[in-house]
C-alpha cells in the first residue's frame, strides 16, 4: 500500500504545493491534501491554538486536524529561511513545535529543517531527509526533486502571467475575461496565504475582478523588479515575503497605470504591522494613490469587507472621471 502523506492546505501551500506534490507523487507516495478552508476547519484551528496566534496559523492548525486521522505522515516542514540572510517569520520557524504542542494524537511529522540563511549547500540534504520517509534510494529522490522543481517553475511562470491559484482549478483559460479598455489596475498586497485562500480572503480577487478591476499580486511581479524596488530601503528587509510585498508596493507607487493599492493583512501579523506601515507612509508621502488596509481575523464579517472594497473601487473610478474636471468656479 502506498504511504499516505498529508499536506495541510494552509500557509505556504499556495506557494510550494506543486513542488512537494509532484515530489511525493513521483516517489510513489499518495498525497492527501486537506479540504479547502471551511467554517469547521477555522473553528477547529481557533480552538486548538493559543489566542494570540494570527489567523493563518490558526487555520493551518485546523487543516492539520482535518488530515491527522487519515494519513501516515504529516508534512509540516520547519521553514526557517529560503534565501540568503533572510527569514520567513518566527512562527514558521517554530511551526512543527507549535503544531505538535497544540494538536493531540498526531501521526509522525516530516518536520525537516529548511534553512538557507547561510547557503543553499544543504538543500539536497534536506530534500533527502524529506524523501527518505518514502524511499532510501538517492537517485530516485534526486529525480523526484527535479520533477518537482520543474513543476514548481511552471506554476510560478503561470502566476507571473497573472493566472492565480484560484484560476487553476477551473477552466481558467476560457473563462478569463477580456481586458476592457478602461479597466482599472489595482495592486493587492499581502502574504500568499491570505491572498489565495478563497475563504480567508473572502474571495477578494474575484470580487475585484467582478467589478472589472484587474488584480496584480506580488507573485505576478518580476523578481528583478521586486529586488530593485525593495532595495530602496536603507536596511535590507530580512523577511522574504515582506521584501516581495514591499518591492511590489514601491513599484506600484511609480507605475502610472496602477490606480490604487489594497493591503490584505491578518490581525496580529507581526510582519504586516511593519510592512503595511512603512508602505503606507511612503505611498502617502510621495504618491497620490489610494492605499487601504483590510485586516482579517476570525470575527471579520464579510459584509464589512464588501462595503470597503466597493467604496475603494468607486473611489478610484471617480478619481479617474473627475480628477481633472473641477470647476474653476467652485
Amino acid at each position: 500500500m502506498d504511504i499516505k502523506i498529508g499536506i495541510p492546505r494552509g500557509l505556504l501551500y499556495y506557494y510550494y504545493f506543486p513542488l512537494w506534490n509532484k515530489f511525493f507523487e513521483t516517489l510513489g507516495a499518495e498525497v492527501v491534501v486537506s479540504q479547502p478552508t471551511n467554517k469547521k476547519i477555522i473553528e477547529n484551528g481557533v480552538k486548538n491554538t493559543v489566542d494570540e496566534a494570527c489567523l493563518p496559523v490558526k487555520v493551518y492548525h485546523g487543516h492539520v486536524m482535518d488530515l491527522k486521522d487519515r494519513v501516515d505522515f504529516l508534512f509540516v516542514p520547519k521553514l526557517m529561511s529560503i534565501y540568503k540572510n533572510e527569514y520567513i517569520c518566527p512562527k514558521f520557524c517554530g511551526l512543527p513545535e507549535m503544531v505538535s504542542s497544540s494538536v493531540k494524537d498526531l501521526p509522525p511529522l516530516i518536520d525537516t529543517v529548511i534553512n538557507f540563511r547561510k547557503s543553499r549547500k544543504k538543500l539536497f540534504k534536506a530534500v533527502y531527509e524529506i524523501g527518505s520517509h518514502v524511499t532510501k534510494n538517492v537517485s530516485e529522490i534526486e529525480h523526484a526533486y527535479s520533477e518537482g522543481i520543474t513543476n514548481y517553475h511552471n506554476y510560478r511562470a503561470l502566476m507571473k502571467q497573472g493566472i492565480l491559484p484560484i484560476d487553476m482549478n477551473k477552466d481558467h483559460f476560457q473563462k478569463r475575461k477580456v481586458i476592457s479598455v478602461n479597466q482599472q489596475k489595482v495592486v493587492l498586497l499581502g502574504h500568499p496565504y491570505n491572498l489565495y485562500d478563497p475563504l480567508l480572503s473572502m474571495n477578494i480577487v474575484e470580487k475585484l475582478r467582478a467589478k472589472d478591476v484587474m488584480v496584480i499580486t506580488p507573485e505576478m511581479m518580476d523578481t528583478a523588479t521586486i529586488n530593485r524596488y525593495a532595495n530602496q530601503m536603507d536596511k535590507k528587509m530580512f523577511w522574504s515575503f515582506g521584501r516581495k510585498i514591499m518591492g511590489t508596493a514601491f513599484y506600484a507607487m511609480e507605475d502610472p497605470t496602477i490606480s490604487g493599492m489594497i493591503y490584505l493583512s491578518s490581525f496580529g501579523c507581526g510582519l504586516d504591522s511593519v510592512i503595511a506601515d512603512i508602505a503606507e507612509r511612503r505611498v502617502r508621502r510621495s504618491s497620490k494613490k489610494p492605499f487601504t488596509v483590510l485586516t482579517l481575523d476570525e470575527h471579520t464579517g464579510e459584509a464589512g469587507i464588501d462595503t470597503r472594497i466597493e467604496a475603494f473601487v468607486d473611489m478610484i473610478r471617480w478619481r479617474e472621471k473627475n480628477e481633472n474636471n473641477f470647476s474653476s468656479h467652485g
Partner: protein
Amino acid sequence: MKITFPHMGSTHIGIKCLFDELGVETVIPPKISKKTLEIGTKYAPELICLPLKITLGNYIESIERGADTIVVTGSCGPCRYGYYSEVQKEILKDLGHDVEMVVLEAPHGNIPEFLKRVHKISNTKNPLKIAKSLKNAAKVLKRLNEIEAQMLQLRPHEMNKGDFDQVYKQLIKNLENSCGAKEMLINIEGAFKHIIGIPLKRKEDALKVGIVGEIYTVIEDAANVDIGKKLNDMGVEVYKSHSASEWLTENIFYRSIGLTSEQKIEEASDPYMKTLIGGHAKETIGHTVLYSERGFDGVIQVLPFTCMPEIVSMSILPRVQQDHNIPVLSLIIDELTGEAGYLTRVEAYIDLLRNRRESKKDEKMLSRH
C-alpha cells in the same frame, strides 16, 4: 552632537557611563511615564509590539529636550526588533523631526560600515579608548544589575518595608548625577554596603517565582506593571531570566567569537524547540525547564501583545508545564493593560502556588504516618 537612546530598565546608566567616558554629550530620556506611552501609541502602527511604542515615546521626549542623534542596537531578524529603526525613522520623518539614527548591529561582513557608525558616535577613532570605555560601562551595568537581582530576592524579607527601595532610588539618582565609571562604581559599591546593612527577617516559606519571556518586558518595569515589586510585596522571591548586562556580554563578546554562554539553557529547551527561532523564545522554554529543576514554585511569562517568537513559546509552554510539573502564567502586555486586572490575576496565581505548596507539605506529613 547630543545623543539619546531608549530606556530599558536601568540600562541608561550603563549607556550614560559609556558616553561619559568617551566625552560625548547625552540626553537621558525622561523616565517612562503615561505620557511616553501615549506619544508612542499615537504615532506607532496600531498592531506593532509595545517596545516600539515606548521607545518611540522616549525618542520624541528626548528630541523635545534637544537630542539630535539616536543610538540603538539592531538585529537582522526574524523578530520585528530588527526593523524597529526603519519604522521609527519613517515615523520621525513624517513628524518632521530631523534626527540621525545610528544603528549598531552585527556587521555581517560590512565591517567598514560598522566602524563608520561607531566612530560617528564615539568622538574618537582610537579603538583602545573605545574598548576601554565599553569595558568600564559594562562593569558598571553588571554591578548595577547584580544589585537589582539581589533586591528582587531579598526585598520580601526586609524588616522595615521600603528600606531597599530607598537605597535603590537614591542610588539611581546619584548615578544619574555622576559622570564616568569611576564615580559610578564608588556609588554602586556604597549601595552594596547599605544593602548588607538592611535588617532582614527571613521568611522560611517564601515562594520562588521566575520571570521569563520577551527581554524588554522582562527588564523594563514600566512595561511589565512592575511585576517584580508586586510579587515581592506578596512575599515572593523573584528571579528574572534576562538582564541587560548578560545580554551585552552574550551579544558583544560570546556571539562575536562564535560561542555562547547559554549552552545549558539551549540544551534544556532542545526537547521542545529544535532551533533558535528569533527573539528569546528558546530561552523562555529553557529557563522554564531550568527553574523547575531548581525547585521554583512557578514561572511567569511576560510578553508584548502580538510578539511573534513568544507566541510560539507560549503555545509550547503547556507541555513544559505538564512535563516538569510547574505552573506557568502568561501575561500579555499592551498599552491598554490595566494594572488592577493584572494584580488580580497575579494574586490568584500566587494563591494557587501557596496552596500547591501546602498540599505538598500535607502529603509528606500524611505519608509519614
